[in-house]
């Protein structure tokens, strides 16, 4: 690749500014493969399911681990907002972290290889994505202009070239793609083998399905908006936790003037969950989605929503008012959203609420 050699700066590893949050119910064997990339970082393990089970963390990692008993102890009655028997419980890890950035990854995600055969340091790419601006106001046809080897194209207004702060970096998956149950049933053998060498900003006003398997974000900016909802045990729906968080956070980022990137890095997703089990979990979501999407597409934050927490509380009121009639679940969810913010503020009292840019 052509390019002037002198100006490549090493990516800061943010060793003391980033936590890796991993929800798990099985084991953490996958960490062995990630060791060269993850070892410098602090891990927050959120153990789902039976708290009496011991989950072994491989030697040499610096970590804190929370099981359900810990969550109940720390949050008291507010623990009701944290899902049980669903990877949605990961957001507890976001709440207890004290770091500026979070990378969250599923325990069935491994290191992928790029087309040259090199192992992909997913964390490094996420950091690059988060530390460079986003461009949500005008689409750049050569994708992320801040990437080495790319730039703004002819016709791109200069006044928009500074970009905005990046709040979210959404990575993708080789091998088992993130399909819903119906698609999995129709295409059980389809694997994602296409490496798309791009990062791009999702434009302002455009919603997307945010997958929590390989996700990084600026916790200081949008942490409170990344509540993964009420899923799993005792709930009528599952596998929509990250979707819900993604729609909420995108609306809030659009309002606050922050960017969301998607594309690289890829991880290797090894496990295809059972599509019949998935169908049962997703079933209600497939119908509710049809109401939820227009809701998010039309929701407007008021001028007084000047912090993420205020945006989120406003959103919860809209959810109650407009989605409550779809199903009583949304009433409960709206209440849980408020509980989440209360819990967040309790656990993070010194974090000055971040105002809009």
């Amino acid at each position: 690749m052509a390019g002037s050699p002198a100006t490549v700066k090493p990516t800061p590893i943010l060793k003391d500014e980033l936590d890796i949050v991993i929800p798990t119910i099985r084991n953490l064997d996958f960490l062995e493969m990630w060791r060269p990339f993850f070892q410098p970082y602090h891990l927050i393990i959120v153990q789902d399911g039976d708290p009496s089970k011991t989950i072994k963390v491989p030697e040499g990692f610096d970590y804190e681990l929370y099981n359900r008993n810990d969550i109940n102890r720390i949050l008291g009655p507010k623990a009701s907002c944290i899902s049980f028997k669903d990877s949605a419980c990961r957001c507890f890890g976001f709440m207890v972290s004290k770091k500026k950035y979070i990378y969250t990854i599923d325990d069935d995600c491994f290191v992928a290889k790029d087309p040259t055969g090199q192992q992909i340091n997913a964390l490094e790419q996420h950091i690059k994505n988060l530390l460079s601006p986003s461009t949500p106001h005008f689409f750049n046809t050569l994708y992320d202009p801040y990437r080495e080897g790319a730039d703004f194209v002819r016709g791109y207004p200069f006044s928009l070239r500074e970009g905005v702060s990046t709040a979210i970096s959404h990575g993708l998956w080789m091998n088992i793609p993130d399909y819903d149950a119906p698609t999995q049933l129709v295409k059980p053998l389809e694997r994602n083998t296409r490496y798309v060498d791009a990062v791009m900003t999702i434009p302002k006003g455009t919603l997307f399905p945010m997958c929590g398997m390989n996700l990084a974000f600026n916790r200081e900016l949008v942490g409170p908006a990344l509540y993964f909802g009420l899923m799993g045990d005792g709930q009528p729906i599952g596998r929509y936790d990250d979707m819900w968080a993604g729609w909420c956070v995108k609306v809030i980022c659009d309002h606050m003037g922050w960017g969301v990137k998607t594309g690289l890095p890829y991880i290797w997703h090894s496990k295809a969950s059972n599509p019949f089990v998935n169908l049962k979990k997703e079933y209600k979501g497939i119908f509710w989605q049809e109401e939820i999407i227009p809701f998010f597409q039309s929701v407007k934050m008021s001028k007084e929503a000047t912090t993420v927490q205020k945006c989120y509380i406003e959103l919860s009121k809209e959810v109650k008012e407009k989605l409550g009639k779809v199903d009583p679940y949304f009433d409960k969810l709206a209440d849980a959203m408020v509980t989440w913010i209360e819990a967040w503020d309790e656990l993070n009292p010194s974090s000055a609420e971040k105002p809009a840019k």
Partner: protein
Amino acid sequence: MSVVNNIEDGEIDIVIGALHSDLRPFMSAWKSIFSRYHLIIVKDPDLKDDLQIPEGLSFKIDIYTKSHIDKVVGSSTSIAFSGYSCKYFGFLVSRKKYIVSIDDDCVPVKDADSFLIDPVAQHLRNLATPATPFFFNTLYDPYRNGADFVRGYPFSLRSGITCALSCGLWLNLADLDAPTQALKPEKRNSRYVDAVMTVPARVMMPISGINIAFNRELVGPALCPALRLTGEGKVRWETMEDIWSGMCVKVVCDHLGLGVKSGLPYVWRNDRGDAIESLKKEWEGVKLMEEVVPWFQSMVLSRTATKAEDCVAEMAKRVKEQLGGSDPGFGRAAEAMMDWVELWKKVGSGPSPV
């Protein structure tokens, strides 16, 4: 194979604007890909020398020159079909459903085995498959082999809408503006991004005219040769006509419920021109864009505009009223847009005027 995704070869015109008189290297490079289609070559009216086309080509070519343009368009129009704008004459007189247009300084990309990558086939695939502008699919084009809609994508939005415009990209000399290229004169694009995606609704973008394809039946009139820089030249760094036209097309597509895709195919763009030289001229274009982008972004057309030409007519009026005062270039663009709509009504359909 004469049908790609239900589009027959006979439904396509390849339109080339000839800004160079010697088209022999260009035609040789594209021969194997273009030979099954009908070609329209429009010679830049400012080009003095005769066009040189290789002998013995087996395909159908129609060549239009200044005399054709003068005959069809006459002098009553404010549109200048010179420079890159000459290709719009080809769009006007074509009678095919789909048009693919590539600049005459581009050649096909070679893959790792030195086979030519066919951008026409990819453009046609893009136009023949639906676009999905209402919700972003994180695995990009869901209709591609090996891809699909991801979890969380609403089912009611999975049938998509008709794609009316396909915007391709460029390896080697990317379509950067003069200041950017002048700052990094050695910079070349070597990154092949294996994706096509729909540009979401109401999102504006710079649409480059270097490598595009469109459904002429649906949006032909919306690609209009309107904005001319006073110092407009014969290299892309000295023009904005396609960028302006692109903004119009995107607004029209968003309004009419049509999709725009961006990404594959790539063409290889040969080195040409001097960015630093062009800096002096492009600056005017750069300034104009600053005003124009927010204006296009807020454009809402009336419900009665149900066809592309109605949309363009309405936009032309607004350009005149709302932008005309700030720069004479906009006033002229508005005139050109109105003339274009008239021209399109007169000779854009029915028997060929040439």
